[in-house]
């Protein structure tokens, strides 16, 4: 019986023959670890970039979005739990799309980017890496939507083929990670810094859950950490919680909580702070941090106006807005 040790994420699962890692999809068969969902996505959709959410990366462009079964976190409030908390052999819907087919499909659908998303693409790492390499060769961008619970060496290698990431920072609190997500905070902070260092365009999402991670002092600490370690131009998205999966006992996040969090982050020095999952909220749109000009107006995932200059500047004061605009 040959056990193997998975080095991909901080769990470091020791997996006996016939078993899977905690993610359910990396399986030890005859002493070799198999990436069982390689080329076998269970979700394929065309989304707007704003849905990831990425607000400073090719705004308004369509993204070919895929996910396979499995995840290395187990969030009590997971919105994709049917996908993320299942193994490949438990899925009814499985597509066959090896990397060349995936890239061809994305191009055929007129997409400029491929997003590895919905569940956590860390668990289908090899599929992401091979597809991303081909996507680059075909002139497509690669977008990695993740919770960032990954070891440094695999992440650094993957960054070579990634263009953008929205990374969940679920709370600025290790206890929250342990109790709500079955993870830990430090590897996620390390991943955020690595994305920034490696030149991957980075935006951060923080889902605010009433009573669990909506403490303003914690939000202030988080915003200051982002400002100091990732830069004041890093977009931060506060997202509204809706009760689901194993967390139906809490109400949706009140609008005032989102407003207060946004103000706290702006006061801490972050320049681009957004509110998500609230249709028509002022915080959906991008404003110039210097003179307040509306730069990109959004309602939900739709862009209502885009006033940025072609080189990504404010049309009024010429302030350079950080992002990858075209």
């Amino acid at each position, binding site marked *: 019986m040959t056990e193997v040790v998975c080095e991909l994420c901080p769990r470091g*699962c020791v997996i006996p023959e016939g*078993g899977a890692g905690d993610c359910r999809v990396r399986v030890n068969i005859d002493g070799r670890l198999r990436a*069982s969902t390689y080329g076998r996505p269970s979700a394929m959709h065309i989304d707007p970039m704003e849905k990831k959410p990425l607000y400073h990366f090719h705004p308004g462009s369509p993204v070919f979005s895929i996910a396979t079964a499995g995840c290395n976190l187990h969030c009590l409030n997971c919105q994709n739990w049917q996908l993320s908390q299942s193994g490949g052999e438990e899925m009814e819907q499985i597509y066959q799309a090896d990397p060349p087919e995936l890239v061809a499909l994305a191009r055929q659908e007129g997409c400029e980017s491929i997003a590895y998303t919905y569940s956590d693409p860390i668990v289908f790492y090899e599929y992401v890496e091979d597809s991303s390499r081909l996507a680059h060769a075909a002139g497509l961008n690669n977008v990695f939507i993740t919770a960032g619970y990954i070891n440094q060496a695999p992440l650094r290698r993957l960054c070579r083929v990634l263009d953008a990431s929205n990374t969940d920072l679920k709370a600025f609190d290790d206890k929250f990670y342990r109790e709500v997500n*079955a993870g830990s905070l430090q590897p996620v902070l390390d991943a955020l810094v690595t994305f920034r260092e490696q030149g991957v365009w980075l935006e951060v999402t923080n889902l605010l859950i009433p009573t669990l991670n909506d403490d303003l002092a914690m939000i202030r600490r988080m915003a200051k950490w982002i400002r100091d370690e990732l830069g004041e131009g890093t977009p931060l998205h506060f997202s509204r919680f809706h009760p689901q999966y194993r967390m139906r006992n809490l109400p949706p996040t009140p609008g005032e909580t989102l407003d207060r969090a946004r103000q706290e982050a702006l006061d801490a020095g972050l320049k681009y702070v957004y509110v998500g999952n609230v249709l028509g909220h002022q915080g959906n749109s991008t404003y110039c941090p210097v003179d307040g000009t509306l730069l990109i107006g959004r309602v939900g995932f739709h862009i209502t106006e885009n006033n940025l200059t072609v080189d990504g500047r404010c049309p009024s004061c010429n302030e350079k807005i950080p992002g990858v605009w075209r």
Partner: protein
Amino acid sequence: MKRWRHHWHRGDLGFVGLVMGTLVLIGLVLDTAPTPQQGSSWRRIDLQQFRAYLDEGRLSDHEATWYHPKEAP
């Protein structure tokens, strides 16, 4: 007013015992449920179903990166 008085019978004691035993069992299960921790977590899967999916091409046997065999102690 008629006073309610309880008389313990053998059946009552058995029932209370059953309830207490069930509670202890639930407590033990909760206490020993696996929590994801570094180096310890893996999952049993339906291997028969997994192999059937592999044979049908619904899953892949692509070799993963970032792993090594565990060395014998």
